[in-house]
């Protein structure tokens, strides 16, 4: 998990009255990552040593002059470069005390910024889009500067790291990617977001020979675009190429659009965002957040005092953020090997790679999923309710006092009014309030409200950690199932607690539960297949497979015996409702190392029952190809195998001793054998595949070659 450490203030500045923008013009890295130069928006440039929190030097231009762009440090020459009054380029060294005595050169056009990539020559970007290397510019400062941008087009922002800038022409946004050696420019057109929205911030980083651009729109959408550095450049850059983009995040922004915010990459999976409200905190508070783009989760957040200006820099695992009257430095850590990606089993999303039956291809999709049709009734109720509706804050207050029925009614009303496209982070607060009320008041428990809140997907276990234990405690298994289904970050301990509760649930009790219909119908299908004829799929015969699994025992007696042994296991050891709950557990994300200790807490009876069920699933899957090709959400064969392995790992000694488990273990042994055989076959294939790749490709000899051959 990424974390934000305790920050400290690097400097304090006096905000000018009625200024909306920040006092900081720019921060650039100096000789190493511990030194930065801060250009403030008035007249001075200050060099700080970050770890000591103290300024090492400061340079100021004369009264009446103004620094118009952030100063940069040229690491090759150890010089600072800044621009004052748009046209005067100033270059000085650390020893120079008075800026006015240092080198000055006046150029013929207005400068937008000076740019100095890591260990590269500084380059100057003019306001009309032209780019010059500093050296060549200074050799003839009055050289004419051409206009690259057309009329009405203006630079809106530029990024460091790589030389790109972003321009706006009416409602169109363009991105210019300038290559300095050889000098070429490529123009990209950004895909239009909703009309009137222009990107708030740009951030570029260089990664795997690609330039990775990150940009944030006021509606909270964060996009990433990859531009290959080696991409062929159009002749004169006149060709405008549309820039493909991927949406990385859709940040919850509340009702209003963002005004000042920015997003930057911390590493390839983490994005730091400033100026976007925290999903579960109220509006009006300013947060610095780190989001994980892989899992779409909020990893760390920090409330910043004072006004945020939507500015953010990051140098060597420190974030620099101006807020209120101060510039704060906040160290952060983004461990690369996040728990989920390194150890854990990610929640497997059902991919469409399943082999569909030829029957469905030929006879059309008969069992097409019915579209969720919004009934007129709900629409009308929504309308009538909206007149006397309560806001979220009001509902939240209501939860603290009102009886269950009223709370449920209001929550339902709130949810039905809500535009499904509009993300509502404050639903988290709502759930928190409900849970805390339930914890505090044993008589209060609103299952309906919670079961409505969980599927909105705005909740997660980290937002509302008490929800699932509460549901367990209240024996609200439907809610448990929903939580397991919609939460991606349930700790292994809680998962195990759920599993334990599910297993020890009696079948009679389970039958009374109303569960998620999909999961139950999956089990119904599995159980009906068990009795009915297992249909042939694409010519595949399960009997053949079974025969194959008996490891080619030639003795017919042994074969019959084997079959007899296997057949009783084909009955499901648990009821379908219970099985549906357990299936949900099988599909959750977990990490083995963390799960194992909790698994050891199980009693041997529970383990045997669970193993029997897993064995049943395995048998169904391995004998019937179609059980995984229906549309239902179901545990995959791999997940079943993983759980079998983990259970055996955790309880092997106990199971070996227990007489009850003996038959079970004997039955499991052929699975292992068949798995081992599968893998050995795969290993063989691997060998031949490797040989294939080793095989020398017949090289193209072309039209003519002179070779030397040797005959023996």
């Amino acid at each position: 998990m990424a974390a934000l450490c305790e920050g400290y203030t690097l400097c304090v500045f006096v905000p000018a009255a009625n200024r909306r923008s920040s006092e900081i013009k720019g921060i650039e890295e100096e000789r190493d990552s511990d030194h930065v130069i801060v250009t403030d928006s008035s007249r001075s440039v200050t060099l700080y040593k970050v770890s000591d929190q103290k300024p090492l030097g400061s340079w100021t231009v004369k009264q009446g002059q103004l620094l118009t762009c952030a100063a940069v440090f040229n690491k090759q020459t150890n010089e600072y470069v800044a621009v004052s009054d748009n046209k005067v380029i100033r270059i000085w060294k650390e020893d120079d005390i008075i800026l006015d005595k240092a080198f000055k050169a006046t150029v013929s056009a207005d400068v937008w910024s000076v740019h100095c990539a890591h260990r590269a020559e500084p380059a100057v970007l003019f306001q009309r889009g032209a780019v010059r290397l500093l050296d060549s510019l200074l050799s003839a400062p009055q050289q004419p500067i051409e206009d690259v941008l057309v009329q009405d087009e203006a630079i809106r922002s530029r990024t460091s790291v790589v030389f790109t800038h972003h321009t706006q022409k009416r409602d169109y946004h363009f991105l210019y990617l300038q290559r300095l050696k050889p000098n070429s420019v490529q123009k990209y057109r950004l895909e239009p977001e909703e009309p009137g929205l222009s990107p708030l911030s740009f951030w570029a980083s260089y990664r795997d020979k690609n330039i990775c651009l990150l940009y944030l729109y006021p509606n909270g959408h964060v996009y990433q675009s990859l531009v290959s550095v080696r991409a062929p450049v159009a002749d004169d850059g006149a060709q405008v190429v549309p820039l493909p983009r991927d949406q990385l995040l859709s940040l919850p922004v509340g009702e209003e659009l963002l005004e000042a915010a920015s997003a930057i990459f911390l590493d390839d999976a983490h994005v730091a965002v400033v100026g976007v409200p925290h999903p579960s905190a109220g509006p009006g508070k300013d947060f610095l957040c780190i989001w994980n783009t892989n899992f779409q989760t909020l990893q760390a957040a920090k409330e910043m005092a004072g006004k945020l200006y939507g500015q953010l820099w990051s140098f060597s695992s420190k974030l620099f953020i101006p807020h209120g009257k101060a510039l704060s430095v906040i160290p952060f850590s983004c461990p690369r090997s996040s728990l989920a990606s390194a150890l854990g089993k990610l929640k497997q999303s059902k991919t469409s790679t399943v082999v569909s039956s030829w029957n469905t291809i030929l006879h059309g999709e008969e069992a097409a999923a019915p579209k969720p049709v919004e009934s007129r009734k709900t629409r009308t109720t929504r309308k009538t309710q909206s007149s006397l509706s309560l806001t979220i804050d009001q509902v939240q207050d209501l939860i603290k006092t009102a009886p269950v029925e009223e709370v449920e009614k209001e929550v339902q009303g709130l949810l039905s009014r809500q535009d499904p496209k509009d993300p509502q982070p404050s639903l988290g607060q709502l759930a928190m309030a409900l849970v805390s009320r339930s914890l505090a008041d044993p008589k209060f428990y609103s299952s309906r409200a919670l079961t409505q809140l969980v599927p909105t997907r705005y909740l997660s276990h980290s937002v509302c950690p008490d929800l699932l234990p509460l549901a367990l405690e209240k024996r609200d298994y439907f809610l448990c199932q929903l939580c397991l289904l919609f939460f991606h970050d349930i700790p292994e301990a809680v998962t195990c607690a759920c599993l334990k509760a599910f297993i020890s649930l009696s079948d009679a009790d389970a039958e009374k539960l109303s569960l998620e219909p999909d999961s139950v119908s999956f089990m119904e299908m599995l159980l009906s297949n068990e009795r009915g004829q297992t249909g042939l799929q694409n010519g595949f015969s399960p009997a053949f497979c079974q025969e194959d699994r008996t490891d080619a025992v030639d003795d017919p007696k042994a074969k019959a015996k084997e079959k007899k042994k296997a057949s009783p296991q084909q009955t499901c050891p648990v009821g379908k409702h219970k099985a549906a709950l357990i299936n949900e557990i099988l599909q959750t994300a977990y990490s083995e190392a963390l799960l194992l200790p909790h698994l050891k807490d199980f009693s041997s009876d529970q383990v045997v029952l669970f193993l029997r069920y897993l064995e049943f699933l395995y048998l169904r899957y391995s004998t019937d190809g179609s059980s995984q090709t229906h549309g239902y959400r179901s545990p995959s064969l791999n997940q079943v195998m993983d759980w079998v392995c983990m259970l055996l790992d955790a309880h092997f000694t106990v199971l070996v001793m227990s007489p009850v488990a003996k038959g079970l273990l004997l039955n499991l042994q052929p699975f292992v054998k068949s798995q081992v055989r599968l893998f050995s076959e795969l290993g063989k294939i691997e060998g031949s595949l490797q040989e294939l790749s080793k095989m020398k490709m017949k090289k193209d000899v072309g039209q003519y070659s002179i070779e030397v051959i040797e005959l023996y």
Partner: protein
Amino acid sequence: MGEFKVHRVRFFDYMPSAIRSMAFNSQTERLAVARADGAVEIFNFADNYFQEKQIIAGRDGRSIEALCWVGCRLFSAGLDGEITEYDLENLRPRYSIEAYGGPIWTISSNSQGMQLAQAGCEDGTVKMFEVLEDRIQFQTNLSRQKRIISLSWHPSGAQIAAGMMDMIKIFDSETQATHRLLVDRGVGTSKSQEVVVWSVAFLSDHTIISGDSAGKVQIWDGLTGTLIRTHLVTKWDVLVLAVSQDESSVIAGTSEGTIVQFQFLSSAVGQQDKLWVQTRTLKNHSHDVRALVHTDTAVVSGMDTQLVVRPLLDKVEKYSQESALRKIAFPHLLQKNLVSCAKKAGLLLFQFPDHLELWRLGESDRNTPGESLPVKRKPEKLIQLKTKLQGEDHICCSALSPCGSWLAYATVAAVRLYRLQLSSNNVSIQKLPRELKSVHQLCFSSDSCRLFASSSFSSVVVVALDQTDCKYLHTLKHKSSKQPIHILSPSEDGQWLATANTDCEIHVFNLRKMKLHCSVPAYSSCPTAVSIHPTSGNLVSVHADQQIFEFSLKQKEYSEWSRQLQRQGLHPLWLQRDTPVTQITFNPNNPAHIMLHDVFMFCIIDQSLPLPEAKSKFYNQRILRSLPEPQRLRESHAFKACKNFQHLLSVNLLEDLSLVVVERPLVDIVSQLPAPVRQKLFAT
């Protein structure tokens, strides 16, 4: 054993032309193949499918549509409206007769070989010709119809079935009465298009089988005129039908490149009533199958420039010569003529139908084994010589003298000799003596002072060349056979000239005395390459059945090595190769070495080493490479085959002992063919 610098040449973009028509003579087992450029090739099926004759009488815009054997005489007809008979001894057209019926689509002879029928396109008549001793004579016209595409004689010779647009007509050749069978058009969009009956076959039980452009193969009762059965074979056209000798099997070639076989089988075992049943589908071609021949054991077909021989054995139990599929990509005789190499000057001459190209090889200055060397100087094209001789006849043979200063080529009607002065970039044409007229092989002596030309009636004309002019010296003749000479091979010292003809004879002439020295004892298989050893004076010959002989010219008997080779027998893998050896050269540095090549390998035979045992590994170069030196000597045998180079047209040894290998990869040929009919494949 030896290291060779190899010039690997792939820039010769020779394109074989598509096969248009074929005719098989079952008496002589000769297959005549006509190509789109007008060339006619004759393959001897009795002798390992070796191509023994090549008649290049083609010219631009003249294509042969149909071929027909009448006894041992070969006739062709084409869209120019002429019927041509070929002189198979002198390899040229004997005469052409205008049929006055517009373009001719098909010709066919009755089984008695007395009458030749042909159909004209524009006026749509079937014209009957009588075959006389020395010519054909117009006999009668059968009534005017629509354009006639295909013809088939009833074996009795009394009736002719003619396929045309939308119908098949049956003529009685005596009474000229006709009746018609109407052929259904295709379904769907092709309903509005006329259906073309591309091919008909008239069987002796009066069954008529037709193949048409709607993709149907239909079986008719010729007596009642009823349709018995329709087999829809393809979405495109059924272009050609071929019937086996015993009329129990019919094959149909389609424009998808497939061949579909039908067999006349009884529906149940022991029952008498037989049906035509579709039995198998073969696919050996990427393009249209325009020509098909059904012999007793094999289907021969050709379109995408290759001739494919596909044995139709019902059960193949083990791989054998008979069951193997053969693809003849390059006509064997043409292959010998396509590339000439000037050994001393390092020049290559490439022969195209209408022009010649002279190239100088590139150079490299380094020598590292197993590598391709940096090319210091690229090969350059020195001369491109266009022919505009006597209309637009195609070049049938060409030769380049070893010194690189003479170039000769011949068409069916004329011979040209050029003197090249490459230093001054000057090409001058030389006047030739009258005796050089009809020539089908050209060859220079190794000192470039003599030009040998195989001429009509198995004679060889010798012409002396010097700086200023050339004069006729002598005509070498022998009495035994009139078959054309297909190999000319002068010895290095200028004393001997070996000739081989398609009657399998090899004659050796003494050039000093200008008379026949001796004849090598005739072997049953046709020689494919003959060469005389520069030092020992032994004549080495390789035959179509892959046998190798060495004949001592001094003792006039087979050499000891040759006898031993015959005693021990050649290695089975050597005998199983299906392309003939087309060239033999000798290594002047090592007199024991004989270098030969076929399309898929070149091989050095070291006469000093033991012959390979039948059980030993034949292609053992890779194993030998991995062995240490002393063991290598023990393991190696006489045949050192190198398969690094494929689709070889020619392998030559230059004077500096580097090899010139001219390859023409089939992939390159295929890539230049027109696109085949588009087929929807599954999941595309």
